[in-house]
Structures are given as C-alpha cells and as structure tokens.
C-alpha cells in the first residue's frame, strides 16, 4: 500500500473521529448538560458556598464560544446582600458571566485553571460600614477546627492560572466608611491574566478604560476621571507585595509609564514603595483639574495653560507618619499664565523642575528649578536654582535674569506710592536667603549678587527723580572681595554713562561716565555706622540747588570709613579726592574755580571726639564774591584737628603762590609766596571768641603788593616773617615799600591774651628802620584809618579829610623805635631821624624824634590824645638847631605872621617851640585851649632890605644900607588863646640897639613897641606899630624898654619880662636832648 493511501486512510479516520467528537459534544451540550439541568445544579452548589441571596438566571455549558475548552455561561447573575447604609442591596449583578475552569487540572492536580472569564454589563457594589461589616463577606464560616498553621500560606489550590479574564462595561462602587473612602468606577473594561503559584501572582492587567471617581475622607480626589492602566505585575499575596513591570497608565489625557514595587508592610503598618515613572506630555490644565477641591483655592484665579511632562521615582515607606521619597522631575513648555493678582499675562513659559522630598524630612527636601523662563508682552525673565528646607525655614538659592520694560509694571506700583518708572532693566541676579532672614531683613545673612543694566531708565518717586541713559550696576552681598576685611556686607560697582538725580524744582545732580565702587559693612546694623570703602571716578559732575551750582571735571577719589577698628580701636574716615577742574557758583555774585585739586582727609574717632587731618593742594584756585576775587596758584593747606568735641586743637598750615585778592573795584592784595603754620587750641570755658581760640605759629610772606582806593599808593611787602602765639606776635622781619618809602618793621606785640581779657594793655615794641620815608605819603596813607568817610565827594576832594576824628586806640601801648635815613616831608628832606613813636591808651606820642633837614638839625616831640571825640589834644615840642631863618619861615609861615621882622634877617638861628591845643571832632582848634611858647636865638645875622624895616629905619633915621650885620637876636613869644605875645628882645645892629615887644592877635592885628636904645643920635626914639598890615599906624611913644640892657636901671616890668622870657626858654630847653 502506498504511502498516499495510508495518509488518505488516516485522514478519513481522523475526520470520523472529529465528527464523532463534535457529535458527542453537541449531544452533551444540547442534550445532556442542558441549561435546565445545569442551572438548578449550579444554584444548589452556589447556595452551599454563598451565604447571601443569589440569583442565577441560566447556566449553560459552552464549547464553541469558549473553544477549544468547555465553559460555563451564566446569565443574569445577581448577589443580593443587603446591609444598612450600603449603596445598594445588590452586591453583584451581571448579565453575562462566562468562565472556563479546567476541571481536569482541578481534579487531577488540584490546580485552579480559569480561562476566558468574562464579566459583562454588570454592577458591583462593595460596602464596608463604619463597624467594618462588609456586604461582600458572603462565604460561610469554616466550622472545621483549625489545625495549627504549619505553613505560612496554605491555599486550597496549589496552582491558579487565570487567563483572559475580561470585564466589560462593569460599574464598580466601593464605599468604606471605616476609611471614609468612596470609589466609583464606571464603564470598566479590564483584561486580566495571571498565574498564582503558591502565594505569588504574576499578572497582566489591562484596564482599557473606565471612568473613576474617588474620594477619601470627604475629599474628592478623582471625579469622573478617565483611567487607563496596562500593567505587568508580580504580586506576592502573603507579603502584599506588588512588583510592577513596565506599566502604563493614564489619567484623563495624562499618560505615564511606570514600574516598581509596592508592598504593604503589615508588620510595620506601612506601605513600601519603589516606583519609577515617566509621563508623556500632557496639558497642564488636565493636571490642574486633578487638584482636589480643598486645594483648588491655591490656584484660584490662575489660568495656566501649556504642556508638561514628568518623570521620577517614588520610593520608601508610606504610613500615617511617613511618606515615601519622591523624586519628581517636571518639564513645562508653551506655558501661558493669567492671574488676577498679576496684571501681566505670562507667555512662552518654560520650566524644568525637580521636586525631591519625602514630605517629612526637611533636610533632604528640595525644589530645584533647573530652568524657568517666561515672557510678558514686552519683557522676559527667567530663573534657576534651588529651594529647600520647604517644611521649616525655606531657603532659596536662585539665579534670575530679566529683561524688563518697566513701564509694563507700572500697574503693579501702588497708586499711593506716587512712583513712576520707565526704561529697561536687564541683568542677572543671584539670591540666596532663608525666608526668616528675608522676613527679619537680615541682609548680612543673605546673599545677593548680580549685574543689572539700566537703559533709558527714569524713575520718579514723589518729588525725587533719577534717570540714566545707560548704567550698569554690579553688586555682591556679601562682598565678593574677600580681601576687604572691613566691609564684607556689600560690594557694588556702578558704571553710568549719564546719570541724573534730584528733586523736582529742587536740587539736581548730573554725572557723566561715572564709575563708583562701593563696599560696605552691614547697613542694617543700627548700633553703629557702617564701614564703607568707596572709590569713584567721573568724567564730570554737575549739581545745582536754587542758585547754587557745582561743576566738577574728572573728579575721582577714595573714601574709607570704618568704626572701632584699627590699632587704636577708633573709628576712622579716610578720603583721597582729586579733580581736574571745579567750578562752583551761587547766584551771579559768587564763583569758585579750582584746577588740579587734591584733598586728603583722615578723620579718626569721629563718633566720639574727632581727630581730623586734612591736606589740600591745588594748582589754581579762584574765588569771586561780588567784586571780591581771590586767586591762588599752587595752594596747599593742611589742617590737623584733635579733641574736636572737648578742647579742639588745630594744626593749620597754608602755603601758596601768586595769591591775588581783589577786594572791590580798586583794592587788591597780591603775594607771590605765602606760608603759614599755626597751632590753634580751643578753650571752651572762655566767652570771648578770641580767647576761645588760641593761635600760635608763624607767617612767611614774600613779594606782596597791597593796593587800595583808600591808599594813594600801593604798598609793596617784599617780605614778612612772623612768629605768633596767643600772647606774643614776634615780627622777625617785615619789609614794606610805599611809593618812595621803604621800611622794615620788627619787634613784638605782647600781652595779646591779657589785652583781650582786659587785664592789661596790648603792648607793642617795634623797630622801624627805613632808608627813605615820605611822611606826607604815609600821612595820606593812614589818614582816616579808623574813621568813616563822610561821602565820596569829600574823599575824592582830599585824601586826608576825615568826617570824624581819628581816635587813638585805648588799651594799647605801642612803641616804634624809628631810624630813618632820609625823610621826605613835602619838598623838605630830613636825614638820620631817630626816635620813638608811642601809642599808649588813647595817647599817640612821637617822642624826641631827632632828624636832620637841609635847613637844620631838628628834634620833634608830638602828642595826640583823644579823650573824647569832640575833645582831641594835639601838642608838639619842636627844636631846630642852626636853622636858616628864611627856611624856618618857609617851613613855618605862621612865624612870619608873629614876627614879621624875622624875615628881615638872614643867617642861622636856633628855634624852639612848644604848643598845644584841643580840637573838635572836625579838627578845628578850640581857641580857648591854644597854648604855645617859642624861643629863637640867632647870631651873626644880617639884616635884609624889607618894606617894614625901611619904614622903621626911616622913622628912626637909620641909614639905609643893603645889608647890615647884627650880632645876635634872642626872642621869646607865647601863644595864649588868640594872643601871641612877643616878649621884649633886643636887636643889636652895629651901633644901634633896638628892643621890640608887643602882641600879635590871631586876627592878624598887632601892637608892637619898638625902642631904639642906642644910636648915633643923642636921644632915644620909641615908636608904636599898631593896627594891621593894611592899616599900620606908627607913632612915637614913650620908651618902654629903655633900660632893658642896663640891669641896674631896669624897671620892675622889664625885670618881670626878662624873668618870664627866661622861664619860657628854660622850659623849652628842658626838652632838648643833649
């Protein structure tokens, strides 16, 4: 038989067998295991195993629908177990229940193999009341005595294999009042496969779809939420351990993949988790919708859109007190946010966040912002960093950057703040702080740093404004410059192209190309001033307030201020400042200009008792106030002040060149070099300002020139060197030149302090040495000093006119030891003048000045007293030796009036005169006080032709000769009030002796008696010359002095006259220096 036939026959046999098998199955299904037979059987069996009421519609055996295995199909299966409070009496209700049970495995190997269990269109209502009673505890209690458990888990089946379990359109309701938990699942479609070996279940669960609501403890966590789940899992039942393989789940449209383990640790009453997950991108609103209602208030008003994704891991224990560790990574894109409390919508939000926490341990919890950025309509900003200690004192360490258009944020500024901001701010800022630090403003504990750029920035706060076109501000808090030991709190670097600040209608400051570095200690510490180091450099600074303006060009410097530090434990301010040019003005009348100025200041202990050191140097300085101008080159000033608060002591040094001071239109002081050092001590116990400030030091000045409208000539000061202290001014050297005069002054001015205290006179003792002194110039120069000019006209008319008398100072005692080689007095010249000039307590005395003129050698004493303004004393004592009579008359024309005959003589004579009078305030003599006495004595004189002499000679029958010699002349005259009395004096002319006497009045009338005592003629002739020069009457009279030359014959009157003459002369000669 061929193989082909063999196969044919075998095939036919198998077909017959198959037919017979199908026929047998069909007969079994349709005729043996009919529903009518199976249903009662199942109902009977169910009653054995189910304690609650059950309803089973129909049970039939299936084969073809469960091919290739037999299965049972139950329709209208219902379990009814009413319990109080349950959502329904029905525990289970399903239209169709199909299941395949491998009966052989169960029977032969004690294995439960369930295949293709299908549950469709059903309802499951599970309920646990508050006492723990459930409606699903429907199995009868086991009445067999329980043997001691020798195994850990004894299952009724050695092996359970569940394949293709499907739930379709199942509604599941679970209420657990003990947990206050409610779950409601609708449209549940589940596929389940699993194998249970021992107590280990390996399963695959696929929840295709369901709509789930879930609430716990009254909080609805899910509400009609679409849930999907596809999970491969291993369950160890005894341990209540679930190990998820690669699983997927979705909540609404949020889908995620996950894997890991979950274990219910009954021993420790906790759940152990270790789940990793990764979501697909999902709409953020969907996630927000999952926020429980009680937390919805946190996002009230928030309209957040965008997409997000998340991955992460949840691991650790979950219990009442412990939460598992969550390591969640969230990425957000295309975010848009509108929030009622924030007037600007945010768009293009991107974020990358990590949340790491077990919600319990603060030390491991953090929220890290890997990156976040967002845009407003016109601005953008972003941040990154970490936020931790979320459950205690939140710590933020964020680096933020922004590019802000500030006008956008104007609506965010409270209207009552009266603030407007415009411009752009761009930059990056790093902040690191605890919230407690922020709340308490513990700035020294926080960290801020960054760099900000301001463009077209303009801010107005109330009346204060600031604007800049471009500025950068770099700052670091604490100070990034760790080398700075005193100001670690803040460092800031400001670089501004232009910066303007001020107040509206008030002050204004404008900075150009400013660079400022500022470092400071804690400015929030109110117990002390902050330590500050600041350096600055500007191209220019312009500031103004009202009419005051300051312009600085290239100012730069350093300022350091610190407190209670250093070797002396003292606070201190150090300043180094310089500028190329400075101009300051106030109104149109005050102006200061300064070039190349440098200022160094060192102030120590400024909070208690400041010690101040200041050094200033400037190449040019010019100051103007009204018509007053001060200019100075290379000026240097240094000052050192100690004990400022108690008894200030100041060391002051000043040096400069080309000092030029203009005072008014016509007064000026110019000094080519000046140097002054001084020590100034303050005594606050003194009331007088001069006594409060004690000054000592020295002054060195060269080549000065003083010009004044009050002075007819400029005063040149070639040099002045002077030491001074509170009690004594010691002028070592001073040289002055005034027109033709030059002199040096040296000496001491003492008792200054005592004088101020009014304890004693101010004493001066000076030497006045001059090669040439023009007295009239000096008189014109000093005339009127101390007085007030009555008006400009009188001042112009005469430089020596005073509206009021010069009052000699009281309380002073000055002596001027003069030595002048040549004195110019008008056209007269005096030489070799020596003597003292003294001013003492209201009295001015020129004491015994000796000098030589072309006319004679002279001695002069002058006295000027001012007891009161309208009663001024002027007196002089004047002695001329060997003076030419004609020059005497020329020097003192009044003599010609008093003794007209004197001009008839030629030759030398000695002349002594003393006189005094009191003057009124206009220097008019008070006639009642005029006193004077004079004596003249001449030898070998000649008589010149003269009109008066001719008349006398004619009357007395003299022989008229051109020149006649006389032996001598000696006369005295006095002045009393308006009376000038010429005492009888004798003129010897060859063989004539003539005695002349008489009175001359101030009204120029006179009454003379001329007696010819001896002559060739045999009798004496006496005449009386009376009247005035215009009305002269000469007549012979009785000889009054005929015996004047004969002592034995003198009459009483003549003796008296001679006695008085002697008295006059001796009193005058008493003052003549030998």
């Amino acid at each position, binding site marked *: 038989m061929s193989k082909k036939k063999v196969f044919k026959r075998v095939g036919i046999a198998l077909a017959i067998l198959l037919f017979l098998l199908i026929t047998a199955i069909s007969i079994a299904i349709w005729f043996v295991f009919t529903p009518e037979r199976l249903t009662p059987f199942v109902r009977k069996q169910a009653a054995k195993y189910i304690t609650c009421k059950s309803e089973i519609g129909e049970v039939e055996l299936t084969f073809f629908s469960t091919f290739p295995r037999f299965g049972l199909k139950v329709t209208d299966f219902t379990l009814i177990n009413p319990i109080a409070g349950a959502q329904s009496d029905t525990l289970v209700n399903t239209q169709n229940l199909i299941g395949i049970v491998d009966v052989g495995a169960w029977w032969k190997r004690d294995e439960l193999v369930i295949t293709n269990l299908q549950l469709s269109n059903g309802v499951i209502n599970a309920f646990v009341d508050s006492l723990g009673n459930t409606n699903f505890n429907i199995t009868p209690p086991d009445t067999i005595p329980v043997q001691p458990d020798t195994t850990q888990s004894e299952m009724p089946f050695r092996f359970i294999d569940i394949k293709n379990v499907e739930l379709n359109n199942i509604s599941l309701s679970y209420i657990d009042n003990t947990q206050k938990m409610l779950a409601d699942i609708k449209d549940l479609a589940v596929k389940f496969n699993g194998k249970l070996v021992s107590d280990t279940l390996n399963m695959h669960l696929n929840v295709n779809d369901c709509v789930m609501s879930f609430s716990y403890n009254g909080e609805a966590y899910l509400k009609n939420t679409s849930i999907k789940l596809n999970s491969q899992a291993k369950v160890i039942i005894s341990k209540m351990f679930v190990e998820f393989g690669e699983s997927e789940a979705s909540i609404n449209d949020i889908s995620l993949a996950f894997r890991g383990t979950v274990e219910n640790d009954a021993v420790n009453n906790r759940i152990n988790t270790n789940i990793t997950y990764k979501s697909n991108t999902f709409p953020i609103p969907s996630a927000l919708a999952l926020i429980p209602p009680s937390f919805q208030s946190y996002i009230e008003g928030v309209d957040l859109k965008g997409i997000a994704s998340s991955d992460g891991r949840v691991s650790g224990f979950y219990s009442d007190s412990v939460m598992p560790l969550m390591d969640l990574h969230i990425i957000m894109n295309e975010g848009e946010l509108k929030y009622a409390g924030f007037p600007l919508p945010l768009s293009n939000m991107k974020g990358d966040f990590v949340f790491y926490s077990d919600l319990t341990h603060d030390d491991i919890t953090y929220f890290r912002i890997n990156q976040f950025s967002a845009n407003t309509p016109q601005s953008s900003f972003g941040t990154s960093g970490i936020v931790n200690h979320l459950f205690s004192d939140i710590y933020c360490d964020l680096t933020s950057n922004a590019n802000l258009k500030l006008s956008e944020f104007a609506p965010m500024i409270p209207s009552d703040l009266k603030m407007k901001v415009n411009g752009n701010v761009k930059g990056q800022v790093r902040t690191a702080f605890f919230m407690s630090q922020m709340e308490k403003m513990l700035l020294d504990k926080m960290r801020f740093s960054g760099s900000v750029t301001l463009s077209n920035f303009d801010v107005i706060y109330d009346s204060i404004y600031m604007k800049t076109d471009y500025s950068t501000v770099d700052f670091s808090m604490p100070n990034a410059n760790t080398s700075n030991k005193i100001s670690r709190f803040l460092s800031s670097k400001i670089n501004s192209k232009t910066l303007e600040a001020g107040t509206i209608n008030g002050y204004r400051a404008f900075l150009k190309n400013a660079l400022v570095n500022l470092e400071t200690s804690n400015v929030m510490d109110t117990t002390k001033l902050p330590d500050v180091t600041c350096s600055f450099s500007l191209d220019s600074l312009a500031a103004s307030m009202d009419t005051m303006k300051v312009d600085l060009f290239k100012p730069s410097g350093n300022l350091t201020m610190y407190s209670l530090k250093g070797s002396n434990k003292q606070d201190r301010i150090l300043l180094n400042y310089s500028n190329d040019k400075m101009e300051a003005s106030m109104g149109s009348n005050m102006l200061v200009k300064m070039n190349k100025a440098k200022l160094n200041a060192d102030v120590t202990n400024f909070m208690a008792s400041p010690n101040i050191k200041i050094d200033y140097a400037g190449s040019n300085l010019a100051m103007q106030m009204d018509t007053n101008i001060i200019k100075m080159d290379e000026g240097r000033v240094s000052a050192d002040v100690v004990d400022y608060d108690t008894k200030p002591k100041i060391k002051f040094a000043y040096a400069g060149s080309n000092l030029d001071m203009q005072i008014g239109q016509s007064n000026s002081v110019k000094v080519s070099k000046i140097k002054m050092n001084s020590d100034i001590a303050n005594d606050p116990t003194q009331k007088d300002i001069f006594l409060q400030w004690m000054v000592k030091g020295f002054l060195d000045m060269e080549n000065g020139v003083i010009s004044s409208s009050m002075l007819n000539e400029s005063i040149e000061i070639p040099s002045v060197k002077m030491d001074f202290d509170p009690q004594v001014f010691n002028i070592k050297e001073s040289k002055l030149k005034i027109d033709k005069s030059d002199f040096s002054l040296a000496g001491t001015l003492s008792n200054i302090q005592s004088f101020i205290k009014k304890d004693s006179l101010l004493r001066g003792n000076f030497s006045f040495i001059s090669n040439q002194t023009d007295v009239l110039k000096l008189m014109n120069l000093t005339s009127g000093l101390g007085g007030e000019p009555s008006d400009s006209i009188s001042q112009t008319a005469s430089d020596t006119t005073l509206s009021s008398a010069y009052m000699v100072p009281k309380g002073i005692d000055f002596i001027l030891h003069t030595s002048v080689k040549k004195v110019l007095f008008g056209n007269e010249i005096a030489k070799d003048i020596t003597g003292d000039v003294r001013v003492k307590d209201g009295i001015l005395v020129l004491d015994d000045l000796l000098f030589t003129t072309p006319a004679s050698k002279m001695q002069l*004493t*002058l*006295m000027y007293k001012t*007891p009161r303004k*309208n*009663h001024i*004393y002027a*007196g*002089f*004592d004047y002695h001329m030796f060997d003076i030419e009579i004609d020059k005497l008359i020329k020097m003192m024309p009044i003599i010609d009036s008093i003794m007209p005959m004197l001009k008839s003589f030629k030759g030398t004579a000695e002349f002594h005169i*003393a*006189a*005094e009078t*009191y003057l*009124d305030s206009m220097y008019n003599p*008070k*006639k*009642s*006080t005029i*006193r*004077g*006495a004079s004596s003249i004595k001449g030898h070998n004189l000649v008589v010149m032709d003269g009109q008066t002499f001719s008349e006398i000679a004619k009357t007395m029958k003299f022989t008229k000769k051109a020149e006649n010699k006389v032996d001598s002349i000696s006369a005295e005259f*006095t*002045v*009393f009030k308006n*009376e000038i*009395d010429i005492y009888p004096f004798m003129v010897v002319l060859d063989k004539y002796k003539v005695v002349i006497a008489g*009175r001359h009045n101030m009204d120029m009338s006179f*009454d003379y008696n001329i007696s010819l005592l001896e002559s060739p003629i045999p009798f004496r002739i006496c005449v009386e010359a009376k009247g005035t020069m215009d009305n002269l009457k000469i007549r012979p009279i*009785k000889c009054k002095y005929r015996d004047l030359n004969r002592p034995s014959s003198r009459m009483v*009157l003549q003796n*008296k*006259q001679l006695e*008085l003459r002697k*008295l*006059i002369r001796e*009193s*005058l000669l*008493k*003052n003549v220096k030998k």
Partner: protein
Amino acid sequence: MKRIIICLFACLSIALIFNSCSKDEESFDESLLVGRWQSGTLYEKYFENHTGATWDTSDDVTEAEAQEFTWTLDKSDLTQIHIIEIGGNVPKYYTVTALTSTTLKYKDDFGVSHTFTKIGK
C-alpha cells in the same frame, strides 16, 4: 643966656613932667582869689597851693578837662604860668584892678581886661 636957661628949664620941666612919680601900687589879698570864677563861658579856678585851671564851655570844655596853670599874686601883679603838657610854659602877666569876695578884675599890658564873678570854692 636967658634963652638957654629958659630952654634948659623947659627941658627939665618936660623931663620932670615925663618922669613924674608913679602911682603907688595897690595890694590885694590873694586869699580872696582862691575859688572858682566865671566870666561868661570862661571859667578860672584858683587853689591855695597856687595852682589853678581854666576852661571855656563855649569850646565844649568841661571843668574836668580844664588846662592847668600856676599863679602868683604879688600886690596887684597876677602872674599865671600856663603849663604846656608836652613841655614848656606860657606865662601871662596881669594887673589886678579889683579883687573882692565876689569880683575879680584884671587887665594885661595891652589893655585887655577880664571881669570874673566868683561862683564857689
């Protein structure tokens, strides 16, 4: 000769006439002079120690500012030595014509006279 005698006689007579005996000088008690005297605005005061002072209120001079002098009264010769403070003396020589407890009159050689009334000591 007779003419000569007559001439000589005439000359003698003339001489006698011109050289007649002078009138006896009047003498005053200087104690009467001590005190303060006023003549209009002019004041003089004489002290017993022969010092004195004078001032004229028309020139705005007060008694305290009076200028000093020394004085002597010899019979009718009143001599005032006015003292120049800076040095020097100005003698004034007067002839007293009347001196009572209330009145003082004197004149100088040039006929200038003054009349004072005593106003106190």
